[in-house]
Structure formats: C-alpha cells, structure tokens
C-alpha cells in the first residue's frame, strides 16, 4: 500500500468514529493511522487505559476488527496466546490467511506495568507488532507520572511545589530498551509525521517476528495545552529534537527525519501547562538541563547512525 493521501483517502477506517475520546486526543489519531495501514485482517489487543475505555463500553465498540482487552500489564502476553492459537489453527489448515497482530498499550501499560510481559513476548519472537502510544503519563486515571513522563513535568503524583519542581527523574528510553532485545525492528514515531509513522507500521507489518513502535501522542488534558494544538505540539517535539524520529532495523539505527529548522526545546515546553513552573525563578536551570539532555541524546543518535550501528 502506498502511504499517500490519495491512497489513504480510499482506505476504510477500522478504528471508527463513535469512540469517546476527548477533542484533540493524540492517541486516538495514533490508532486510526495504524489501522489505516493494517487493514481488515487485523487483530488488536489492548492494555487497560484511555484508548481501551473510550473505544468500548459494552455492548459498543469503535473497532471494526477483532479487539481483546485483558488487563493492564498483559497486552503483549495476551497477543502471544492469540498468535500461538492462530499458528495451531494454521498447522491444522483451519485458517490460511496471514493476520496482522497488533498489541497496543499506553506508556503506563508499556514502560511500567507491562514491561515484563512485553520483554517476554519480544524475546520469545512472536510474530506481532507492539505499538505503544506514548502520552507520557497515566492519563486514564488522571495524569499520574509514569516511567515515560519527562524530567521536570508536573503531574498529579509529581506535582510542582515549593520544594519539588515536578518530576525529578529522567524518562526511560524505551525504544533503546526494545532495540536491545535484538528484535528485527524497533522505531520511534509521532502522530505529527503521519507518513513517517504509517510507513513504519507498514514496514513492521512486512517483517516477520517481533516488532515495536512507540508513537508520540500528546494529551491536551494532561499536558495543558489548547486542544486544537495537538498536532502542533507533536510536531514541535520532533522539531526540537525532544522526540527524534528514527528506527532500529536489525540493530542499525537510522534517523528518519532530521528537522531542517531546529527549534529550542524551550519553545515547545512553554506551550504546555505541565512545564509552566519551569519558567519561574530557580527552576529555569531545569530548562537548560532539558536542552542539554536533548542535544546529548541527538548527538548520540547521530553517532550511532554514522557508525552504522
């Protein structure tokens, strides 16, 4: 399938309207884009979270493909069983076609509580794609900090106060953790760069074995920005190099978008209420620290790419 607007406009949506997501929801866009590529013969498993809740409420479903949710920490494990079952049925000749298996999880269900199940599934080599929609906190339960919440961000469990200026720890680098599983494909994408993201989904689909994509999907409710700015916020994360778009194919890093005009990370931070406290007094040095880290990570990524690693 060609990833272009002309082709895409002809595609049927399998994550459909009628879901109960907020206006300006980034994750809902991430699901729709992935399903436009994956198509009809797809099975989706889901970890507990915003997108699980908003796409269901029994007896309704926003999915036009089979969907299974079974708890928070086990989207990857559940899909392992689905894959094994299809293999068992294939061996008996009961099903013939290839089915895309996509396990979804939010950052809480992936970076944190589901990391073990994801790691196990990737190590075992199941033929599935895991997509983490990353909105950098536990949004379903009301904006609590997760392993994906960036340094300095204020959440309901890492609130900025007089003594503690928001989250004091760095976020995990999940893409590198997944790449370290020596899986054939791990990638980082953003809903703002739909062609890049969907090309990655398409590429992952064509590769046999375990694949992983983490897609940057801003949350207007939890990040405190204007809801019409979701794509802009995602775009600025890429342009500031806070969220580099790259892939690791068979262990080799490749940057898939090198922003032509790089913007200071401060420009991106200041549009979001979760970083508002960083612009006051002493906390301003945290912005410098964030910029230093963004630059350092980008340099590291460039070096890996240049070295063919």
């Amino acid at each position, binding site marked *: 399938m060609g990833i272009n607007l002309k082709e895409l406009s002809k595609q049927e949506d399998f994550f459909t309207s009628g879901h109960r997501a907020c206006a300006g929801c980034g994750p809902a866009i991430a699901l729709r884009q992935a399903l436009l590529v994956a198509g*009809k*013969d*797809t*099975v989706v*498993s*889901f970890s507990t979270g915003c997108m*699980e*809740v908003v796409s*269901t*409420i*029994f*007896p*309704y*479903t926003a*999915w*036009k*493909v*089979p*969907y*299974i*949710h*079974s*708890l928070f*920490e*086990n989207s990857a*494990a*559940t*899909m*392992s*069983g*689905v894959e*094994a*079952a*299809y*293999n*068992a*049925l294939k*061996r008996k000749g009961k099903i013939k076609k290839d*089915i895309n298996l996509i396990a979804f999880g939010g950052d809480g269900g992936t970076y944190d509580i589901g990391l*073990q*199940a994801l*790691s*196990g*599934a990737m*190590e*075992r080599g199941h033929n599935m794609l895991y997509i983490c929609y990353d909105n950098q906190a536990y949004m379903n339960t009301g904006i609590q900090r997760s392993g994906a919440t960036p340094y300095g961000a204020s959440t309901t469990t890492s609130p900025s106060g007089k003594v503690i200026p928001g989250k004091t720890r760095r976020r995990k680098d999940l893409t590198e953790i997944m790449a370290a599983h020596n899986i054939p494909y791990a990638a980082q994408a953003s809903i703002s760069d739909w062609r890049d993201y969907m090309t990655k989904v398409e590429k992952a689909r064509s590769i046999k074995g375990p694949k992983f994509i983490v897609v940057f999907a801003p949350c207007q409710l939890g990040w405190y920005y204007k809801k019409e700015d979701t794509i802009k916020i995602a775009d600025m994360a890429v342009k500031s190099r806070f969220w580099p778009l790259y892939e690791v194919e068979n262990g080799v890093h490749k940057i898939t978008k090198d922003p032509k005009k790089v913007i200071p990370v401060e420009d991106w931070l200041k549009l979001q209420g979760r970083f508002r406290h960083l612009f006051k007094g002493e906390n301003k040095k945290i912005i410098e620290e964030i910029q230093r880290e963004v630059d350092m990570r980008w340099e590291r990524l460039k070096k890996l790419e240049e070295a063919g690693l």
Partner: protein
Amino acid sequence: MRKVLMGNHALSYGAKVSRAQVISAYPITPQTEVVELLSKMCASGELKAKFIKVESEHSAMAALIGASSVGVRTFTATSAQGLAHMHEMLHWAAGARTPVVMGNINRAFAPPWSVWTEQNDSLSQRDTGWMQIYAQNNQEVLDSVIQAYKVAESLDLPAMVILAAFVLSHTSETVEIPGQEKVDEFLPPYERKYKIDPDEPHAFGGLTDPDNYFELRYKIQKAMEEALEKWEEAGEEFESIFGRKYGLLETYKVSDAKSLIVSSSTIASTARNAVDRLREKGEKVGLLRIRVFRPFPAEKIRGILSSVGKAIVIDRNIGFGASGIFYQEIKAAMYNEEQKPPIFGVVTGLGGRDVSSKDIIEIYQDVIRREEPKSDIIWKGLKL
C-alpha cells in the same frame, strides 16, 4: 496402555490425550515435571501443540485467555506462589468465559518458605469462578483433566485439577493412559461460539456499566450450578467408555455409618484405610470425599450427612481468623437442615506435615468421645 507415572506426568498425559493446542507455562517447584514432559512431547512431535514458555505465571494465563478466545484448547500448570501470581488472571479467565484447564499442585504459601503440600493456594482462589477438582490418586489426576475439558467447554468455565505436592506430584503409581480414539470419542474438538475472527469481528473485555455487569455475573453462577449436573454426566459417560467411575463426591462405607469422616485429596484416600481399621474394631464409621469443590455439591452433601450422628471434617488448610475451609463450607451447607449432625473441624498436616492412617484413627477416637464441638478447630499433629 498402563504406565508408571508420577502425578505431574499424569497431568501432562491428561493434556496430551485431550489434544491441548496451546500450552503456556512458567516453571515452579513442584510443578516442573508437568511442563518438562509437555515440552518434550512438543519437541518430539508427539504432541502437536504450541508451547509458549512465558516469563511469568501472570503472562501464562494471559496468553491462554488470548488463545482460548481464538477458540483453541489450552493448558497450563502451576503451584502456590505461581497460582497467587496468576490470581488476577484467574478472575479474568472466568469472567471472559474461557474454558482454560490447568493443573495446580497444592503447595503451602510462604513465608515460612515451603514447597510441601497444603491447600491454601487453591482454596484462596475459591471465588475466582474456577471449577476445582481435588484428585486422590494419579489415575484420577489424568482422568480429571479429560473430564475437566468436557465440562469446562460445555459451559465456558475454566477448571483446575488439583493434586497434593509430592504426595501425588512426585509419587509414582500405575496409571492407565486411555487410548486416543476413546478420548476423541469422549472429548470432541472445542468449538467456541464467539471468538477472535477477523471475518466476524467482536470486541472482548470492554468496559461494562452497572446496567449490564450484574447479569453477566449471574450467568457465571448459573453455569456453575449447571456444572454440578455436567460433572455427573461427564462421570457417567466417562465410566461407560473407560470403565472408571467418578462423581462430585465419593462415599465409602456410608450406608450403615453412624459417623462420617469428611475430607479431600490424599488425606481422604488415607482416611479410607483408617475407616477399614476402625471398622475392624467395630466402629460404624464411613468416609465422604469431596472431589469437586467448585461448584460445591451442597445438595448431595446434605443428602449424605443429614442422617449421620457425627461428621468430622479434616482440613489441610486454614482460613485464618475462622477455621478449616471445607469445614466452613460443609457447616454452612447443613445449617438450614432440620436434621443435622454435630460437625467437628480438624486442621492438620499444614506445610506438608505427614498425616497417617494412625493420625486419622486418633482424630476419630478423640471426636467420638466429644458430645458437641466446643470450638471450630481441633488441631491435630501440632507440636507446641
């Protein structure tokens, strides 16, 4: 074919002849031989199943819920801490109406760290919506796996076949392994009504509001009630094909008994020997073994216990702050009966301490002297 098998291998053969299609398990003492033999069978091609070697028991059950939702037959085995780790998923398996069958080796919980037998692990899962079958020998372990699939798949309820750590799991006995053709006759392939199928998409596990949830719980209870009959039917059909008889309960020398010993698992089989020895001494005593604990065969139990003079329930488990768990259930089942015996509760053998025929005789002789139960627990074999 007759073979000398340890209880663990009886579980593996049970899964094999039942043609389990997806197996997912994580090793834990004293369960490991179950999955080792199944792995070997898969490696040799003797068993055509997909074996997922998961990274935890939690994922083992998650994977089976996924597989079962596609509509294939699934199996796992675990014990104690592993079962507790699975606990969240046990509720899910029952709620999702996936007829997963698993073996659980009854092992005591830690701390104190223990690998020996006790029933608190499986009994802590009492209210998860799993059927529970307590086997007394290795033949029953194997046969119960086959029957468990039959009943589980007819009602879409999961089932747990339970055996005592070491006393059965690592004890070798002669076991008849039923021929495949006969098993196929008894157990047709699993057909799931609603499954994960891209040609007919459904959503599973959606948020369910108070307007819908209640009825779905009611249906689980109704299926459990129906299961009582299904276990008896399965037992009868099993007997007609394989010649071995199984029911919800087993009675031994009850017709003229004035007192009954009530127990489960291997303590019940030891108690049979104790009954014989007591009978030799002229004691009118019999045995009631609870084989199927969930669904609880309360009506059947009432039918047997209401006419006896005394009932002695022996528990290798304890509901802390209350009493032995079988004792609680049996007492509750009898409460509304007009005619009921005094029921004595004995707690013994925790953490795998041996319970011999002599111990059971002593329990009987002690209880028979008592007029009425003064407390809910009579401790036996306690060293203080």
